[in-house]
Each structure stands twice: as structure tokens, then as C-alpha cells.
């Protein structure tokens, strides 16, 4: 039955659809096809989530080859949540991308654009679904390579997209290299690439090779998820990529890298690994510094997309902070923030894309008086902005709240109260950069240019995401519970039986 193949379906459907998409003649057709594929994947991912929530982790041998011969897909609760999230965002962003791409991309390239989009999507899903460490690398590169292309496609409107893509390519490849070197070292020691087997064989083991492998892997992943100070590629890439690409990447690619990190941190190495404490200390400090540094930089940028990109770096700091607590609450909070931030950043970047569509600019100066000329877009942007600040009744408040509670419950070298004050202080920085944009939108006089009307196909996804932002600020109990359960399955028992053995 087809449902037996659930873990693999959301990954391979977009992968096989991509070449077909390339053959479709025009933007609307290719875009609609990609949208359809995203919806189908989302449906399967949601079914997968429901199944996993009910029966626990699912294993699937690719091509019928069981472990240790074949590649095993393994989806637990944390994975199912991230897969659902990624496919949900794809389902929302793809229809938005149709009109946006017609505007921002050379017509002859739009079919390729959507094909790349699908491959990127497939890669991201694959990273999450797989239970094989090397397969993580493969999918990470599938998504990264397609991302470099997607960023470069922004060149029609701004040639700087090319240098941004090139920088991203170089740095991303360095990250991938580090990652694969680390994997090689681990393979040397254990002779396996299957995550559960890796876990079993690494239990209690500790030598220089493993430590080197550990360091290589997390440096590589750190680069991929734009951990401060390895975030250099992110602001430019997000700023000059086409609007729809930014909306999708900002909410998914770093999140998936965070997920991969959680996998390696907890499932593969676990707490028994002696080096772990030092690593958590690193994440704590880098997370905190990243929060402040990136938020401060964001305040002084003149380009709204750039401001939001730096804000993303800062928000990754929050997630690292939650992970560094190494408690169920902390990791649960990080997962909640992964979800909430993905939702709010998509909302924000889609609104920015709508402004770009209407006025052809994302400079702050173009935002003057938008409250009067583009009230709906302004409203959507403000909802996302409030969530970014963490105002009650928006999703961002919930994630900061659980993060702060986790901080109170954690034992750290830095007193938890100080951490809480830092979280609050960095929220104040967010008030400053969001406030600056809001001020321009609401209180400055409009420029003389009349904005183009934004089509419904772009408006509807934006409004939907704004509604989701509000919804998960009001009724968050389900989300918080499921994220906590996912964190429990990651921490307490590793892959379901690892740590408990």
C-alpha cells in the first residue's frame, strides 16, 4: 500500500517532479504544477506526522534494503514536525512565487526556477527524513546547490545577486566539506553511517579522532545554519535573492540545518560524550553574542530585506540558546521557535516581496507612508514585526515565553536571570529595528509614486501566514506540547531506544 511508503513520499515526489517542471512551457503552468506537488507533499507529511504521533518513530528501508546494507529512512516526532513545517511553507510560498517570479525573473528561466525550487524543497525534506548520516550530507548538498542557483536568479533585478550567490557557494561548500570530513572521521572509527548504529558504537567512546570529527561536523553545520560568527553569507544571499526564494529559504533552510544539528548533537553523540558540555558552552555564548551583534547591525541598515536578514541571524541565536540548555524544555523551546520564526519570517519576507512588486525597491526610503498607500501589506508586515518583537497574542511571544521559562529551569555557567535579561534586552533591539520600519510606514508622508496593485495570488498567502502567526500566538498549547514531546524523544531516548539502553 502507498501509505507504507509514507516516510519517503514527501521527499521523492518533488524530486521526480522537478524534471517534469523544467519541461513546462510557461511560468504559470510550471508554478501551478510546483504548487500542486508541494500540496501533495504537504498532505503526505501531515499524514506522516499523524502516524508518528500515534505509533512512534517509523523506519523505512530505501529500495527494500534493510540496515546495514541499505539506506534507512527514519522519522520520529521531531522530524515529522519539521517535515510538515517545511512542506507547509512550500505550499504557501509556491503559489506566491508565481506572480512574484513573473516580475523578478527572466521569462526564459522561470521553468528552471520552479524546477530548482522543487529540488531545493526535496533536499530539505530529505535531510529531515533520512536516518543515514551520509545521506544527510547528500540532501544538504542537493538543497544547497539548488539554493545557490536560486539566489543567483535574482540577478535580473539586482546584479549583486551574483556575488551574493558566489559568496554563498564558496562558504556553503566549505561548510559541506567540513561536514563530510567529520563524517569520514566518524566512519573511520565506527565503520557505519547509520545514525542509530553510530550512536550505539559511539556510546562511551572518546578519542581524538572522534573529537576532531565532532568539531568538523558542528563547524560545518554551524556554517550552514549561519551561526555567529559564520553568518557572513546569509545577509547578502537573503537580500539579493528573488523575494519568493528569500521567503522560503529564511523560513526553512536554516531551520533544517538546526534540525540536522539536533540530530547529530543528541541522537548520534548524546550526553555520554565528554566533549558535549564544552560544545553547549560554545553554543550558549555564540547564541547570545549573535543575538546582540546581529540585532544591533540590523538597526543601522537602510535596506528592509537586509534588516530582516540580520534579524534572522539574531533569531538563530535564540534557537542555539535553547539548544545549549540541553534540557527537554530548552530544546522544546528551540523547536517552538523554529516553528514560530519560520512562520513570522515568511510573513515578513512575503510582505517585503509585495512591496518590491509594487514599488520595485526594498530600501527603507521606499516604505515611506506605505500605511496609506498599501494598507493591507502594511498590516501583514506589522503582524510579522510584532511577532518578531514578541508581543503577546503573536507567535513570537509564545516562543520567547517558553524559552525564558526554559532558561529559568536550566543550570548554566551564566545565571539564568542574566540570560533572561539578555533575551529581553535583545528583544528591545528588535523593537528598535522593527520600530524604525513601522515608523517609516506609518508616520512618514508617502512618496509621490503610486504603487502597482499586488495580485491576489500574492496577497492570499501573505494573509494566510499572518493569520497563522496570530493563531499560534493565541492557541499554542498543542504546538508547545508536541514540540516538548519531540524534544523528549530526542533527548531522553535518542532515537527511541538509543539512550535508554
Amino acid at each position: 500500500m502507498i501509505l507504507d511508503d509514507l516516510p519517503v513520499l514527501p521527499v521523492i515526489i518533488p524530486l521526480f517532479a522537478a524534471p517534469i517542471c523544467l519541461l513546462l512551457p510557461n511560468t504559470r503552468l510550471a508554478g501551478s504544477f510546483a504548487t500542486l506537488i508541494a500540496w501533495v507533499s504537504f498532505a503526505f507529511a501531515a499524514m506522516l506526522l499523524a502516524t508518528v504521533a500515534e505509533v512512534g518513530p517509523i523506519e523505512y528501508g530505501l529500495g527494500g534494503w534493510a540496515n546495514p546494507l541499505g539506506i534507512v529512512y527514519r522519522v520520529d516526532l521531531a522530524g515529522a514536525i519539521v517535515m510538515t513545517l517545511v512542506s507547509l511553507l512550500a505550499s504557501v510560498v509556491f503559489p506566491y512565487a508565481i506572480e512574484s517570479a513573473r516580475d523578478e525573473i527572466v521569462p526564459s528561466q522561470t521553468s528552471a526556477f520552479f524546477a530548482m525550487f522543487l529540488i531545493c524543497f526535496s533536499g530539505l525534506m530529505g535531510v529531515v527524513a533520512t536516518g543515514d548520516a551520509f545521506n544527510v550530507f547528500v540532501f544538504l548538498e542537493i538543497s544547497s546547490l539548488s539554493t545557490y542557483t536560486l539566489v543567483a536568479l535574482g540577478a535580473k533585478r539586482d546584479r549583486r545577486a551574483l556575488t551574493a550567490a558566489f559568496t554563498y557557494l564558496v562558504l556553503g561548500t566549505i561548510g559541506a566539506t567540513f561536514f563530510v570530513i567529520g563524517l569520514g572521521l566518524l566512519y573511520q572509527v565506527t565503520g557505519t553511517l547509520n545514525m542509530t548504529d553510530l550512536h550505539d558504537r559511539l556510546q562511551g567512546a572518546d578519542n581524538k579522532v572522534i573529537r576532531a570529527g565532532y568539531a568538523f561536523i558542528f563547524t560545518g553545520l554551524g556554517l550552514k545554519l549561519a551561526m555567529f560568527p559564520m553568518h557572513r553569507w546569509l545577509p547578502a544571499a537573503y537580500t539579493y535573492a528573488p523575494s519568493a526564494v528569500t521567503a522560503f529559504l529564511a523560513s526553512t533552510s536554516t531551520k533544517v540545518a538546526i534540525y540536522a544539528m539536533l540530530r547529530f548533537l543528541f541522537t548520534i553523540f548524546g550526553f555520554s560524550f565528554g566533549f558535549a558540555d564544552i560544545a553547549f558552552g560554545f553554543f550558549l555564548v555564540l547564541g547570545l553574542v549573535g543575538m546582540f551583534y546581529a540585532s544591533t547591525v540590523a538597526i543601522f541598515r537602510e535596506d528592509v530585506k537586509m534588516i530582516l536578514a540580520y534579524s534572522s541571524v539574531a533569531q538563530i541565536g535564540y534557537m542555539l540558546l535553547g539548544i545549549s540548555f540541553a534540557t527537554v524544555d530548552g530544546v522544546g523551546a528551540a523547536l517552538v521557535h523554529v516553528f514560530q520564526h519560520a512562520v513570522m519570517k515568511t510573513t515578513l519576507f512575503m510582505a517585503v516581496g509585495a512591496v518590491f512588486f509594487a514599488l520595485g525597491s526594498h530600501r527603507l526610503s521606499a516604505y515611506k507612508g506605505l500605511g496609506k498607500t498599501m494598507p493591507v501589506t502594511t498590516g501583514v508586515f506589522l503582524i510579522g514585526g510584532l511577532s518578531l518583537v514578541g508581543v503577546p497574542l503573536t507567535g513570537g511571544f509564545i516562543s520567547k515565553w517558553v524559552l525564558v521559562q526554559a532558561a529559568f529551569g536550566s543550570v548554566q555557567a551564566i545565571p539564568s536571570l542574566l540570560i533572561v535579561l539578555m533575551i529581553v534586552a535583545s528583544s528591545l533591539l528588535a523593537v528598535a529595528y522593527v520600530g524604525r520600519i513601522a515608523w517609516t510606514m506609518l508616520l512618514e508622508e508617502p512618496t509621490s509614486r503610486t504603487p502597482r496593485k499586488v495580485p491576489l495570488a500574492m496577497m492570499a498567502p501573505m494573509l494566510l501566514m499572518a493569520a497563522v502567526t496570530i493563531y499560534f500566538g493565541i492557541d499554542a498549547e498543542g504546538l508547545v506540547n508536541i514540540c516538548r514531546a519531540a524534544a523528549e524523544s530526542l533527548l531522553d531516548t535518542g532515537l527511541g531506544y538509543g539512550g535508554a539502553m
Partner: protein
Amino acid sequence: MEALFSAVSLETAIAGSMIAPLVGLVFVAFLDRSPNLRESASIASGLVTLFFTLTIFTAVGTGARPELAIIEMLPGLEIKFKVEPLGALFGLIASGLWVVNTVYSIGYMRGHDAKGQTRFYMAFCVAISAALGIAYAGNLLTFFLFYEVLTISTFPLVTHERNEAARAGGRVYLGILMGTSIGLLLPGVIWVYGMTGTTDFVLGGILGDVFTNMPLVFGIMLALFAWGTAKAALMPFHPWLPNAMVAPTPVSAFLHAVAVVKAGVFGVLKVTVYTFGAANVAESVAADVILYVAAASILIASFIAMTQDNLKARLAYSTVSQLSYITLGAMLATKMGILGGGTQIAAHALGKMTLFMCAGAIATATHKKYISEMRGLGRVMPYTFIAYIIGACSIIGLPPLAGTWPKFFLMLSSVETGDLVLIAILILSSLLNIVYLLPPAVRAFMDPVPRDQVSEVNEAPLLSVVPAWLTAIGCLILFIYMGDLVRYLEPLVEGL
């Protein structure tokens, strides 16, 4: 009367009091083109709101504590309302004076041919709704949420003139209020939740004896709240208040003498009684420190007020000084201290609103803002200046006016705690009040009219003078009925 106020259930009344202004807002927005209907809608929704708040006020007086839960975001993290006497009082004052102020606004805004009047009335609707949310909040989170809504909704009012000065003032206003509330108040709220697992307001406090052996930690927490609610204008976070004087006078009169500033001091009183527990605060050393900061605020603000020639600025500094009386009462945390603070909320609201409305009436009639230009004006506008004198005497604390009692209670409280310095400060402050509040009126009556002055000045329009007289008479009435008010607030100090 009884029958009238039991016509709606109390839950309905709580929801209704916050929804009615918003319904009013919709009408105001749609009646943009016909100013008379638009203002009628404002007043009508004000009256409906007043009906609801009166219903609640009456019921709470008979011992009811109506509750209304709206949203539960996470277990223990919810938006809910629960009314107690102090909140019922604040709600009644805010909604009652809103009606008076709306009438006054009509005279003022039309007299000045102000632009954007629809926007002005709309923002007022949101502000009053938020103020009631603060008054009826059932936990710290709800309080915080509406506190922020109040800040944001009053911002367009402060910057109403839309010139450079308004923007600069608005920036300070927003910066200080948002900065302190997010930087200090929010960590305080989160911390309380972290320690106790709840943010509910419970009589006697929810902290219990968690902090008995940690005076420093308790002190830090108290400080987070005392300065975090910067709407209480405790120094050094007071500059937003003088800066907010760039707003049209009705805004200063209602928001910066009643709704906004009282939301701040109400918050301080409320967390003292319902979060920290008055008994805990009374024993705390940190409370004594904040007490003296409040005392210093009282004096310093008075001295600054004396140097101000702009009447509104002088009144603003007077407000800073008067608000600190309430913080002082809360930090004394004795029976008389709390009652003094609670009654000062009502008494100062009436007195200071009278003063501001008079200042606005003078500006409407003569376009004069500076005290030095007001010589001899009393003879042409006697009604305005007599109302001014009544308001000023109430603030100073002269019988038979409402302002007498709170100061009396606070003095009693300081006698109780045996703090002679505090008594001296309170007396000195009253003297200073005389020095800076009365001269403008005295000079208006006594000094000759300067020669170069045009003599075409008339009394201010009726719509400006009558509301000022209403609140002035209110000062008189409240003096007489203070005993009832004290009895009404007594549940707050149960067991002290």
C-alpha cells in the same frame, strides 16, 4: 437605580465596557464626513461604557468579584479579567472623565480648527478601551498587554500636530514607555511566573514567603515593577510626561492627568497589594529606598515646575510630583498608605483634569500658553480662572476639596511608621504646590492688563468652561463623600 445596574450580567458588563468604545470607533470612522454625528457617536459610546463601568462599580461595592477569561494561550498563561475595588474605581474614573473630556474636546478641537479630528477621536476610543483592560486585568500578563496597547494607541494623539516638535516628543514618549515596559516590566512579569507558576492577582500577593530570606532579590523585583511601569513617572523615567505636552490639551487633560498616568500608578498599587503583598513590601528595605526616590521625585519635580513658564509644562511637572505620592503610598504599604494612594488616584484625576482643561480654555480663547502672558486675564475670563483656582487648591490639599484627604492619609501613615523626614517632605511639598500652582491665577486677577494687549479677549467657549467646572465641582463632592470611597477601598487593606 439598583434595578438598572443589574440589568446586564457582570461578565457582559466587563466585555461590554471594553467593546463599547471599539464600536464607537467604527461609528466615528464611518461618520468622518459629518462632525456632529461623529461626536455624538463618541459621546454615546462613552455613555454606554460609563453605564457598564458603573454597573461593575456598584456590584464590586457589594462584594462581587466578577471574572471573565478570554484566551488561554498555554496552561497558566491566559488573558483574563477579574475586577476588584481599586480597578473598579479606576475604570469608573477613566470612563466617567472620558465623557467629560469628549465634550471638552469638541470645543477645543473645533476652536483650534484642528486637522485629523476623526483620527483623534478614533485613537481616544482605543485608549479608553485599553485603560479599562488595565483596570480590570486579572493577571499581570493581561495588564502588560493592555499597558502596551495604551502606549501605542496614545502615540498618534501625542503626535497629533504632526510637526517636528510633535515627532520629537513622540519619540521620547514611545522610547521611554516601551523601553521600560519591555526592558523592566516584562522581565518582572516573566520572573514572577518563573517563581510561582502564575501571574494572577491575588489579595495578599502570590509571592508569599518565597523571598523572605532574599531581601536583595525581592528588592530587584520590586524595582523592576516600580520603574517598569514608567507611566507612573517615577524619576528618572519621567521625561516622557513633559514631552507628551506637545499633544493637544484634551489629550494632556485626559490621558496625561487621568488615563495613562493613572494606569501607571494603578499598576504600582495593584502589584503591591495583589502580587507582592502589602505586608511583604512594608517589611522590605528596598521599598524604603524606592520610597525615598518617590519622595525625592515629589520635591525635585516641584522645583522644576516652579521654573516653567509654559503653563502646560508646569502642570506636567506637577503631575510627576503628584503621581509620586501614590508610589510613596504603595511603598509605605501600610493601611493608610494604600488608602492614601488609592484615594489620590481619584482626587488627583479630578483636580489635575480641571487645571488642564482651564489651560486649554485659556489657549482656545487667547492662544496664550505662557504664564507671563496671562497677567490680567482673570478679569475677562473669570469663570475659567475660578475653576483653575478650585483645581489648584484641591491639588495643594486645601479643604473643602478632595485633594485634602489623600495627603492627610499619607501623613498619618508616615506618623505611623515614625518617619519624620517623610512628614517634613510632605509638608514642604504642599507649600511648594502653593508656590507654583496659585500664582498664575493670582496674577491673572491682581495684575493690571498690559497696555499692548488687545482687549478683544472674551471668556472661553461654553464647551470648554462647563467641563472644567464639572470636574471642579467633582473635587468638592469627593471631599464630602471621601468616607464612602475609603470604605469602598477597604477590602484592599484587609488584614493590614
